[in-house]
């Protein structure tokens, strides 16, 4: 196996594959000189997991073989990164091999910390405790919803940064819709326990979602952080972040959004900032200390919402700046913090939030996207997956 490459990309997720495809399109000479390090056999389109959990999409349609998404010209190193040594321009692999690079792109995603909530790891996937944040459990969400006959349906959101910040509430709105369609909504209490002080960061969409919550009669508990799951008693324990008190809520269905953090090999490396995320410049995506290192996606400290849509705008900026650096030219491309959150509010409705670093709406469509619409729901469900597989991962959109 080759041990040195012009460009090494850590992570074969959305950020890694898209960047590799863009680099190889932009600079044909890089063919065979771009390595992607990832141990996973499968690549997932995660934004659809919400709909999988609600029974609106088949789980299998979100999964493809990694070998099929690795761009032509890229070398896939099927291994995990153990350690970075940016002073020597090297990464150490789990197999104890060392790979050298001239340029490094860190796109390793985010780590789900199932241990971050006491009892969660043991409870998840059975007894009504589900989560759309893992491929293996998203199917169980649908099973739980189908078999729900009434009682408390509890949904949580942690205090840590998470990927797709809208997902914890999307499944809640879909649950409400499903229970209405099946005629048992009046037998259920839907409770949203969130560590955040409000439903959404951007005022325009917050106002729209507050109306949705009112309309659906959802019981919101802000500044409530899930700290324990007691599966035997069917109890979810929250910490009230304002008072420090413990609040116990009984559940019949519990959808958990687990706490998340930067992957361990990043947290403990010289590439990380004090919070553990890859420390990159918010406009150029270049590392703040190591000039030949770039980062994008969920593992970075970019002050924006961690979504696939954000990566769609980050990847062209990173690729362009990296190619400029290779040619010894000034970096001209800048990322404005664009991110998007298509908040599904029912089986046929969606609020399409798009905004930047300043939390200012940056809407792409010629109408008010804060209004619940069927058209945007169809866009999310039917067209965005195609755009992802055949446009974004190919480096053209």
């Amino acid at each position, binding site marked *: 196996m080759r041990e040195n490459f012009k460009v090494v990309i850590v992570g074969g997720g959305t950020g890694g594959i898209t960047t590799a495809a863009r680099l190889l399109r932009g600079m044909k000479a890089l063919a065979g000189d771009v390595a992607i390090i990832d141990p996973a056999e499968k690549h997932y389109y995660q934004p659809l997991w919400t709909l999988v959990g609600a029974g609106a999409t088949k789980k299998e349609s979100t999964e493809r073989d990694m070998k099929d998404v690795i761009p032509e010209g890229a070398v896939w190193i099927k291994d995990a990164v153990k350690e970075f040594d940016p002073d020597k321009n090297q990464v150490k692999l789990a197999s104890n091999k060392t790979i050298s690079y001239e340029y490094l792109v860190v796109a390793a995603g985010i780590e789900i910390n199932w241990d971050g909530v006491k009892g969660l790891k043991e409870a998840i996937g059975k007894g009504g405790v589900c989560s759309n944040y893992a491929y293996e459990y998203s199917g169980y969400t649908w099973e739980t919803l189908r078999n729900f006959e009434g009682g408390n349906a509890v949904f949580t959101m942690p205090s840590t940064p998470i990927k797709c910040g809208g997902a914890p509430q999307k499944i809640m709105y879909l649950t409400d819709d499903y229970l209405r369609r099946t005629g048992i909504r009046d037998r259920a209490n839907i409770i949203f326990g969130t560590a955040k002080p409000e439903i959404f960061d951007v005022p325009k969409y917050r106002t729209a979602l507050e109306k949705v919550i009112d309309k659906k009669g959802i019981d919101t508990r802000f500044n409530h952080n899930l700290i324990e799951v007691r599966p035997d008693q069917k109890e979810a324990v929250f910490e009230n972040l304002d008072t420090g008190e413990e609040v116990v809520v009984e559940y019949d269905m519990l959808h958990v959004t687990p706490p998340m953090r930067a992957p361990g090999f990043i947290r403990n490396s010289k590439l990380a900032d004090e919070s553990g995320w890859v420390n990159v410049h918010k406009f150029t995506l270049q590392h703040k200390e190591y000039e030949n290192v770039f980062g994008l996606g969920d593992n970075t400290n970019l002050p924006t919402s961690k979504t696939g849509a954000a990566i769609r705008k980050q990847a062209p900026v990173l690729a362009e700046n990296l190619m400029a650096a290779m040619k010894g030219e000034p970096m001209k491309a800048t990322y404005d913090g664009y991110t998007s959150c298509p908040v599904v509010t029912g089986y046929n409705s969606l609020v399409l939030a798009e905004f930047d670093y300043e939390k200012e709406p940056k809407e792409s469509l010629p109408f008010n996207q804060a209004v619940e619409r069927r058209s945007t729901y169809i866009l999310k469900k039917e067209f965005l997956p195609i755009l992802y597989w*055949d446009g974004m991962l190919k480096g053209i959109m």
Partner: protein
Amino acid sequence: MAGQNVQSDWKESLKQPEVQESLRTLVERLPDLVESLEKVDEAVSFGRNVMNDKQTMEELKNRLEYTNVDLDTLEAGLKLLEKLPKLLELVEKLETAVEFIENVLKDQESLEYLQDSAKTYMEPVQKRVDDGVNFWKEVQAKAESNQQHISIFTVLKWMKDPNVQKGLSYVQAFIDTMPKSR
């Protein structure tokens, strides 16, 4: 007097180190400069020969006459050149769109996904169409098998049917409203 001044200025200039340096460089580069001048001279001579060669010029003239290149073409060419940056942008967008469509068409999984989606949206429409077709088939079958003589009394009996009454009330409303609209 003035001539003497100019001469002394020249001599003074020649004493300056940067002028001397320039002269030295010029002398050093003289062979290259002569070579370049010779090439220019060759090119000019070639141009002159072509212009003097009546046969070649005549052929060129004929060729131009039989093409559609005229002043308008040249003007259009210039305008196109002006628009090239915008055209390039559009071509790039088109290229992206074409590549995307090609990718989708090659991607069996995406095509199946789209097909399934289309089926979901088409099913209710298809059902409505099928219902309509079945309805007319039933009507046709009944009409063809009906041996009953239709008399004025049968028509009067129809009048009692609520659906006929509803239809007629629309006719009545239409008649009542029509003069007002005019």
